[in-house]
């Protein structure tokens, strides 16, 4: 037990700071992915919700692809695909260089693609929960379509979509672990290094799992706070 605590301590003999650095990378990656995923997901939901069939179809193809592919494969497709694409492009222009894509960026792009396709479904079902009268009301008040969307629809939409988006955030946190495979020093990778050096794999992977649980718990608390905040405007009945 004491030995385990020494291994986990911060400083010279411990792996605490390594693990902490890994946690930072994991959290940063998830936070960096979130805005892109949300915006992209919202735009796709708009497309799916539009009355234009071609736009709807285009959006549906997008979600079919990124919800059907394993996240790990999406990650490899982005990581190697972009690398090869840039190299081919440079070759066409006459340069011959070896380009390595930053694994953080590759992870961000891949996770955004996956997150956005799931988020679009969350937004879409929220759209369906908003009655037509809200649009008509906005129209009757003389608001432009853009104003109706941002001032009338969006605040209600966020409230309706929040539970599903909260779940997606928890999934996103877990999915960041996949980037350890393409070499990003996240929580799982750092735990793996520590495990190999100290020959205590159960301890370090166990700690990694507990940290993920802790992150999930913190997120749940935060999410329920946000949820309460969005319901501030609701009349008590």
């Amino acid at each position, binding site marked *: 037990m004491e030995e385990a605590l020494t291994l986990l301590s911060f400083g010279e003999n411990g792996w605490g700071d390594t693990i902490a650095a890994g946690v930072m990378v994991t959290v940063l990656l998830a936070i960096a992915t979130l805005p892109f995923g949300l915006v992209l997901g919202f735009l796709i939901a708009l497309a799916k919700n539009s009355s234009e069939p071609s736009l709807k179809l285009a959006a549906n193809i997008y979600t079919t692809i990124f919800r059907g592919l394993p*996240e790990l494969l999406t990650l490899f*497709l982005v990581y190697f695909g972009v690398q090869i694409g840039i190299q081919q492009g440079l070759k066409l222009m006459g340069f011959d260089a070896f380009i390595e894509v930053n694994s953080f960026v590759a992870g961000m792009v891949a996770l955004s693609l996956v997150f956005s396709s799931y988020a679009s479904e969350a937004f879409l079902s929220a759209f369906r929960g908003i009655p037509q009268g809200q649009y008509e009301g906005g129209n009757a008040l003389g608001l432009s379509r853009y104003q109706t969307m941002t001032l009338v629809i969006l605040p209600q939409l966020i409230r309706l979509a929040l539970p599903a988006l909260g779940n997606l955030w928890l999934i996103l946190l*877990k999915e960041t672990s996949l980037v350890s495979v393409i070499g990003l020093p996240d929580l799982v990778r750092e735990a793996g290094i520590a495990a190999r050096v100290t020959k205590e794999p159960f301890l370090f*992977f166990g700690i990694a799992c507990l940290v993920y649980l802790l992150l999930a*718990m913190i997120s749940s608390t935060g999410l329920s706070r946000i949820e309460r905040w969005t319901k501030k405007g609701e009349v008590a009945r």
Partner: protein
Amino acid sequence: MIAANPETGQIRPPAPPRAWTNIRIFGHVLMALWIISGASLLYFLGSNVASTFVEKYWLKYVDGFLVTLQIVGLSLLVGALLSIPVALARNSKWKIFSWPAYGYVYFFRGTPLLAQTFLIYYGAGTFRPELEAVGLWGFFREAWYCVIFAFSLNTAAYQAEILRGAILNVPKGQWEGAEALGISTPVTFFKIILPQALMVALRPYGNEIILMIKGSAIASIITIYDLMGETRRAYSRSYDFQAYIWAAVAYLLIVETLRRIWDKIEARLTRHLKR
């Protein structure tokens, strides 16, 4: 819908042609992009069907596909069996049962499958002397068994929640009503409770299978040559990017096929609700 005028027999005039709004143009541009990329993908795959890459590796891909099916099938089956006691314990009134079950479900749903797999596969090494003493080391030494073990525990947690939700969803009155009608317990369960529970559980079960197929790609990281593992091996040997493209096509086909089958089953189960 306005019917044909009975006196003149005239049908409704055709709808006016839709205007080319910006949104419509945008939608068509996006579709054009999809069609172009789809066509170039088909061209790329078509021109590579006879390539040395495909000739060399296609059998490996078939093997990998079969391994993926085995992993998913076995894990889902073991997970389904495990999920029944967990769901029952989770529903139990006694905290001695419900709390550990809750802890189990919370742990396996709250941590990444990758970390769980590592914890079991690498972590078992920590307990090697103990495992050898009880004769289980042979089980945990093999990546294959570890993957099945980890995936089963993981999916059992998810399936337990699905099962619990489905059981809770069928009102007690259904049991009581059947009893009042003098229907025997097995018939009540199979003909009254199960179909209603399945209606709720079918969609989440389908999603769980799809999640498992996608999640099984993780097995490739600990040296299992499933579809993803064969893909990575083929890529590392050939440096040919089509390795990943073929895998993507295969996974998409599997998941889409399954999703369609599931839609059919759901339509069948809910046919009485259709209006």
